[in-house]
């Protein structure tokens, strides 16, 4: 094994933290007001504000979108949402098996 030091950042080497979670967040886009709280506080910076057709509540036409790739399922986003637009669902079959949210991810890739 050839050691590389100092180390360069390589995306491919990132740990698969999305595989660690037991819960995953879901945004009710009709409720989301795009306040940005979840964006600010997410430890993995998974969340960003983006356009959406369902953005009824949000005057800006934007809603919070969550990228589950690295999401650890901590639930901070749900806790800081002032309008309870985010709910945490349980990953089916535990975090070692194929779960619904990950299957969804594969579909969109």
């Amino acid at each position: 094994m050839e050691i590389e030091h100092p180390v360069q950042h390589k995306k491919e080497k990132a740990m698969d933290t999305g595989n660690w979670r037991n819960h995953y967040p879901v945004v009710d886009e009709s409720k989301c007001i795009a306040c940005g709280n979840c964006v600010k506080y997410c430890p993995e910076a998974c969340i960003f504000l983006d356009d959406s057709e369902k953005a009824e509540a949000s005057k800006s036409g934007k809603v919070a979108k969550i990228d589950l790739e690295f999401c650890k399922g901590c639930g901070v986003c749900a806790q800081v949402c002032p309008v309870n637009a985010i709910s945490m669902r349980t990953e089916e079959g535990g975090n070692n098996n194929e779960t619904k949210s990950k299957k969804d991810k594969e579909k969109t890739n």
Partner: protein
Amino acid sequence: MNEQLTKNFYPGHATCAGCGIPAIVRHVLDEADDSVVVINATGCLEVTSTLYPYTAWKVPYIHNAFENAGATASGVETAYRILKKKKKIDKDIKFVIFAGDGGTYDIGLQSLSGMLERGHKVLYVNYDNEGYMNTGGQRSGATPYGANMTTTPASETDIGNKTFRKDLMEIVKGHHLEYLAQANVAYIEDLRKKTKKAFQALEKGPAFLLVLQPCTNVWKFPTSDYVKVGKLATETNFWPLYEIEKDNYKINLKIENPKPIEEYLKTQRRFKHLLRPENQEVVNYIQENINQRWNKLLKKAECQF
């Protein structure tokens, strides 16, 4: 993921689910106009973000040892100055230290003091989770009174840690900084404003940010609650938000009706033993200390130089 917030520090690191540190790192680095070089003391952040072969850092980064972030940064900043003078470097670079309370209040205090005293233009950001969390939750000089930590465990007859936290802001203030501030990761806008001011203050010398970082793992609260717990710390006046600019104190948020400290204590299992009826005296003692310190802070804020 969020492009802006992952520009400098990428996910795929091993911090606990619901850890408050990444938000501090991301928002502080996001406030820098120039390129940034990060110096990191051993601790939760360092260990979780640089597990070879992965580094979550997209900016230049150095970890040396536990107690020498201040000294290491002094070397880096000095090298920068002279290499820039010799025209070997042409870009403007800002230097930011991230260190936990362990590597700052205790073992890192000398190194921090030396760096501040010599006036190196470095921003020192202390993420304060009130203990040695990376090693499992031992008490540090930043551990609050009555906390149940692994080296000051609570029991039927023991209330846990029996000292009040060091007043690091006062210690740092003694080094004649242009700007230092006490912030809270639960108040991101306030943290960002302070970071901006701190970066500006770097023109004259070092700056310092003391940021409360509630730790879900060792303070023992649900992974979703770091912001909720952090807010309570400020709403009870346990962790006031204030700045010291050119020796003048300025309180950023005056809580109209501060909540009683029990509201904060009951959110964390590290204080569970204090809520037993026989420990009411201890809670009163803690409340008294908070009230006194808040009143002193008010007085300090009145006196302007």
